[in-house]
């Protein structure tokens, strides 16, 4: 898999609107009480990140839409159980989406032995489809900058795990690393990224 592409030179300007980020934790809390308009605002704030992540992991847009739909339903149902003491709202929400996307590629793989069409569908696609559409937000640029500070091995391991949906054992094999070292690369890389980005514990 290729490393994350730098922002295309002709990238669109940061999307207008949303001058102030809504308090997602608060929106989740309201959603937990059945407030559908709060949930709609939550959707609007997160949809691009959720959809982009799902597309990147499952690669098929139709399947990604299903993942998004299922994920938001799960987020709605469990919104009252979000605990801000245990992590950020964005992390909580994207963890749900990522888990579902990864489950989908892994279970699709398990059945691919008898589903030949799967292979046609899942040949690695050029990342341009999503990268081009990726918003060139300031935050995205910061993340790319921080990613560039990782070693190649760390970055590749993280990307294969997070965007590829591979297990650390599979990542080790793909990168010709001794078994057990990919998990260290992933952890070291994430810690580096965390510190570069100044992410708090929650």
């Amino acid at each position, binding site marked *: 898999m290729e490393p*994350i592409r730098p922002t295309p030179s002709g990238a669109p300007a940061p999307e207008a609107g949303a001058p102030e980020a809504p308090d997602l934790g608060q929106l989740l809390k309201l959603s*937990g009480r*059945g407030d*559908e308009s709060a949930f*709609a605002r939550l*959707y609007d704030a997160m*949809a*691009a*990140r959720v*959809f*982009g*992540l799902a*597309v990147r992991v499952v690669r098929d847009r139709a399947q990604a*839409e299903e993942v*998004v*739909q*299922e994920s938001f*339903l*799960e987020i*709605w149902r*469990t*919104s009252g159980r979000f*605990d801000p003491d*245990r*992590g*950020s709202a964005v*992390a909580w929400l994207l*963890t749900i989406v*990522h*888990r579902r996307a990864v*489950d989908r590629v892994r279970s699709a793989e*398990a*059945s691919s*032995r008898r589903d030949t069409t799967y292979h046609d569908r899942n040949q690695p696609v050029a990342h341009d489809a*999503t*990268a081009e559409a*990726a918003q060139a*937000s300031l935050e995205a640029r910061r*993340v790319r900058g921080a*990613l560039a500070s990782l070693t190649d091995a760390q970055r590749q391991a*993280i990307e294969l795990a*997070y*965007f590829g*949906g591979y*297990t*650390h054992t599979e990542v080790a094999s793909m990168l010709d690393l001794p078994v057990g070292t*990919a*998990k*260290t690369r*992933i*952890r*070291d890389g*994430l810690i580096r*990224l*965390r510190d570069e*980005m100044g*992410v*708090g*514990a*929650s």
Partner: protein
Amino acid sequence: MIEIHALSGAYAVDALDDIERAQFERHLAECAECRAEVAGLRSTAALLAETTATAPPESLRERVLADIATVRPLPPAVATGAATRRRFRLAPLAAAAALVAAVGTGVVVTQPWADDTSQTQLSAVDQVLQADDAERYTKAIDGSEATMVRSRSLNKAVLVTKNMAPPPEGKVYELWLDHEGIGMVPAGLMAQGGEQMILLEGDPATATGAGITVEPAGGSEEPTLPPVTLFAFEQA
């Protein structure tokens, strides 16, 4: 613990297999340091999604909002009192009584299973679902549905869930097989809710029933009561 601690990064990006994940979650339940690290690494991983942000089709928003309008959010996970935390063995007799009670409260047997999800499943699961002697036991649980499918000839059983609530934070669902004279025997863990298909471990062919409980991450040797649901198997 150093070895298991090193899995925090892989856990934060869902790069563990099911067994490692269960092990790590068991560790997580008792390691505050790892919990804090995982929270930070998950927040970090979430930043990666910034780089792939893509506007979804407008129709997706309508579908999502239409979906949620028909479903009630779950109540918050209320702290449970000491009484429900206490574990005790489900004695064979008590188990039998509970299973009989479960039958009394409406087990729907033989609900034909929709075929539309089968293409994404493991073949072992498919074998059970498509077995000629497959028995199906469906229970409704608070808006969700759990179906136990058992094939005596294959000596296998599969739990199929629909719209199942995720287990509370730090907890998992544990599956059990009830054997006469032995009691409830652990038959596997289910870390997630939603749509799942889980192949049970053990010997379903000779079991008199099955059950689902909520247990601490990593599972328990004995069921925590009350169970989420119980299934009574047909007897030969």
